[in-house]
């Protein structure tokens, strides 16, 4: 019963295509702060929140390690599990920096996921609107935005 749902409509076309081509089981497109813009495969809000929070945290941690090593940043992270693999990578779009977490199974491969991820990023760049002007983030706004995102993603 997994579906693709988006908060920002410009992500939908590229995401649907990426999921089909890469045979991805789960995908989250989020901001570096963990705010979800689009997802595929999640059926429960709590799972999506965990995944996005953890994904953003992993990218932030690896960014810190990169800084300490004198690298500008690390690119893709790939973890191979027994049944699944995860691919976590940033991408720059006119909308700003985004992070994409992809979970895939043995029916595909990291090689294919990488090939189609490159296409996905190109499609996102093309589809993205110009960067929005953002004011300072207040805790109350953040909570409301998060709840609105989840409501939109799970059609409540």
């Amino acid at each position, binding site marked *: *019963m*997994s579906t693709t749902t988006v908060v920002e409509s410009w992500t939908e076309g590229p995401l649907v295509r990426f*999921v089909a081509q890469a*045979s991805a*089981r789960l995908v989250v497109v989020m901001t570096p702060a963990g705010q979800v813009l689009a997802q595929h*495969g999640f059926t429960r809000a709590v799972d999506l929140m965990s995944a996005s929070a953890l994904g953003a945290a992993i990218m932030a941690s690896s960014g810190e390690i990169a800084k300490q090593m004198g690298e500008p940043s690390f690119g893709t992270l790939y973890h191979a599990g027994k049944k699944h693999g995860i691919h976590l990578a940033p991408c720059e779009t006119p909308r700003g920096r985004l992070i994409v977490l992809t979970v895939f199974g*043995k*029916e595909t491969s990291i090689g294919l996921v990488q*090939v189609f991820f490159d296409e996905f990023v190109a499609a996102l760049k093309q589809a993205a609107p110009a960067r929005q002007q953002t004011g300072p983030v207040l805790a109350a706004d953040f909570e409301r935005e998060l709840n609105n995102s989840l409501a939109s993603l799970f059609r409540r």
Partner: protein
Amino acid sequence: MADDIRALSTALARDPSSLRYVDLAEALRRRGQLQEAMQVALHGLGRHPGHADGYDCLARIHSDRAELSEARAAWERVLAILPEHLGALKGIGFLYFRQGDVRRASEALEHALAVDPADEATRRALAAVRGEPAPARRSGPARTRAALQPAPEPAPAASVVTAAPATPAAPAAPVAAAASAAPHAPAVSAASAPSARPPVFGGLEGATTDILLLDARGLVMAGGLSAGDGSDVSELAAAALAGVSGEAERTCEYMALGAWTAIVAEAEHANVVLAPASEGAVLMVRRERSTPVGLALRIADRARGAAVRWLQSVGV
């Protein structure tokens, strides 16, 4: 509307919380009304979120709609609820097989067989997945002479044969039930017995045991494939071969190689040649290892010609 669907709809309207939504969804699925089947299944699962049979039905609907990721997710849900659900084990075995994951397909089918050792269809499917040797052949020279004999005149247009009802023992059957709705498919049954299939490859050796014509959805159109014990494994093979054809197209597109014209796999017991026959249809020819690849390609070309003529004659 068919009587059974009418009766089930009435029963469900009287008692919306009834579990008979599964029967209704399954009846709609077998009639090819996949959208309606999906709605009924989802509605029922909304009321019964822990109902394994409901997810099993949903998985079959997704499979018919070629939504394989969703089908797998639903079958995995079934197995999370009931680890020994036979339908889900066979369904997921079929999906793994279709995706080329022979090891996981075997594991799932072995598990299914452990649950029901008397299930002959699962036993045969498992044997095919594990790879039976090619059937016994006559000696080389005679075989080669027979293979080079000209193909006969095109077979007459196949008459319409209604699809055989899907059985619980055949994971490929849910896909077969929607054959009449498949694009580019001639009006022949995907679930028909080998002897009932149109004699497209008469005159070529192995016309019903080593030459198979399938459509883009992995459904058998003509010919046949036999396992080592003589049993027909056409449907299982067709499902796997369609995956290869799709992958070949994708590979050629991304590598800018143009349209693919043939794939040859040199395997332990046989050489297998795949070739596109017409839009969406794919031909497979299997020959013993001793047949040179060049000759196998020529035989495949002949069979392809016969397939194309037949498809034109049935208006595809």
